[in-house]
């Protein structure tokens, strides 16, 4: 029998392994399916996880039968604009709340956090009407602006938590050195918050990249479709589906998120554990 000590030592590893399999299996399965021939896929569940031969025809069809590249470009433009604008607004707002010590700063922070409690669907109709009023429905901004609004609470909260950990003495040293508020923010607070920024970029990117409701509601032009909306193209009018091409398109849509995470992974962990130990 396993001793109690060995069990407690192994249990976390086993649990993490199970969790990992549950998380990774669907991704591996989709990648595998995207590389199998239509015949192999037609055999259904009996097809192998590791294909006999690597078949790239699904990818060729995915790009040929649908404007996948255009969808990729649209998603990228919307993600870059949304993240850029979110950071541009959240970082100075959080800095002001945490470091400029004005009356009611905590109330302002709580006000922003209230945004976390508003469900997207409740706001859908008012936003739809507002976008119409502004004349920007069916444009990139129709998806970018509402998403910025919904991403701001988390971004402000994360930045505020980070700025709280910057010692005031550092900012005071900058002000004695001759830096004004904006220069102190730009030259001291922003470079120090690089890990927080990366966390916000990755965290928001996953949501923005996968966003469906706004894109499906506010964008009607085919030329503006994003990847999650565009994936619908692979279901034909009669409900027939080219599974191979669909899996290939899903892999294409997932790849940027995985690549971004793998590239910035170390920084995110650093930022999550920042302040846990004395530097």
């Amino acid at each position, binding site marked *: 029998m396993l001793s109690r000590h060995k069990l407690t030592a192994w249990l976390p590893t086993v649990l993490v392994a199970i969790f990992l399999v549950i998380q990774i299996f669907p991704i591996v399965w989709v990648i595998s399916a995207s590389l199998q021939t239509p015949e192999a896929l037609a055999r259904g569940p009996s097809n192998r996880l590791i294909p006999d031969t690597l078949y790239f025809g699904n990818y060729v069809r995915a790009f040929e039968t649908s404007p996948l590249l255009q969808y990729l470009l649209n998603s990228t433009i919307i993600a870059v604009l949304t993240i850029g604008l979110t950071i541009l607004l959240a970082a100075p707002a959080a800095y002001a709340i945490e470091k400029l010590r004005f009356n009611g700063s905590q109330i302002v922070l709580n006000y922003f956090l209230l945004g976390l409690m508003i469900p997207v669907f409740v706001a859908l109709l008012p936003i739809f009407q507002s976008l119409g009023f502004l004349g920007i429905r069916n444009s990139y901004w129709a998806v970018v602006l509402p998403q910025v609004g919904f991403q701001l609470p988390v971004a402000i909260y994360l930045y505020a938590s980070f700025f709280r950990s910057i010692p005031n003495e550092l900012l*005071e*040293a900058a*002000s*004695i050195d001759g830096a004004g508020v904006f220069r102190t923010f730009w030259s001291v607070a922003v470079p120090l918050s690089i890990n927080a920024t990366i966390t916000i970029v990755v965290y928001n990117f996953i949501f923005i990249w996968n966003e469906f409701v706004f894109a499906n509601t506010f964008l009607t032009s085919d030329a503006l479709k994003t990847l999650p909306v565009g994936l619908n193209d692979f279901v034909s009018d009669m409900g027939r589906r080219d599974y191979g091409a669909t899996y290939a398109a899903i892999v294409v849509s997932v790849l940027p998120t995985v690549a971004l995470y793998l590239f910035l992974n170390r920084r995110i962990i650093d930022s999550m554990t920042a302040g846990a130990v004395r530097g």
Partner: protein
Amino acid sequence: MADVSIRRLGKQFGAVKILKDVSLDIADGQFVVLVGPSGCGKSTLLRTIAGLEVVDAGEIRIGDRVVNELPAKDRDIAMVFQSYALYPHMTVADNMSFSLKLKGTPRDEIGKKVARAAEILDLGPLLDRFPRQLSGGQRQRVAMGRAIVRDPKVFLFDEPLSNLDAKLRVQMRAEIKELHQRLGTTTIYVTHDQVEAMTMADVIVVMRDGIIEQSGTPLELYDHPRNLFVAEFIGSPAMNFISGKAGPDGFTTDDGLVLPAGTVPAGVVTYGIRPEDLVPHSDGLEVEVVVVEPTGPETHIIGRLGKHSVSAVIRDRIDVKPGDRIRLLPSAARAHFYGEDGSRLN
């Protein structure tokens, strides 16, 4: 360089008054140490001079300018913080040149000033390193370098040595003092360590509860502390205090012992004597030894004189152990007398 004049300064946080009507004159080139227990207002006073806190009342003058309304960057001061406050993402050279870049100083002049400061502080080989790659002492020197390059009228130090170990603290103390002698810049230095104050200051300012209890040269404060608080705060080990009253032959303690004291002023209730002014002598008073602390050059003895606890510093080697009885004679000429309100009577 400039003199600093503080007139009737007041500062409060909420309902708590931190500085109460503080006035102080600091001469051009002087090294002034603000000392006092935690919460006495010394750091707040320094921060108001720096421009990091807004004053509620009074006037601060640096040179011939009233600086109350001026932002920190326009006061021509430089400050060294307790935590060094070095920019972690900048190299040593960038840390030191940051203020000059903001001022728009030409690049070659920045290079010269940084090189000069690096030479003074022996930082030359460290200029390309980041703060995280430096030891505590090196970081402290970089913080001083950052202050020096600005060539300010006044240096402000806020407990700069309290994060260093004891040995490094002694070394840095000497370096700061040497730096002051070399540059001659007016310096205001905050510490809670009275040894630091005694060894570094031209003038010590002792603070308590937002007021200045006494200011003067280190030896003035040591030899003539104005009240019980200063007498107790300055000096290590602290002055001995014995309660009692004036008697016909000197000072009579509560438990009836008579201490030789020359002329004892009327109204005295506390007799003070420095530990080194209790000397072994056959005519002395009997003291029961409780603790013996040999430090090498001297021996500290804590003992009981009647019901009073006293400490003595014996300069000559002495062979005693706890439980022994020795005779210690207080120097009558060096006795300090304090009245009911704690103020000095002699």
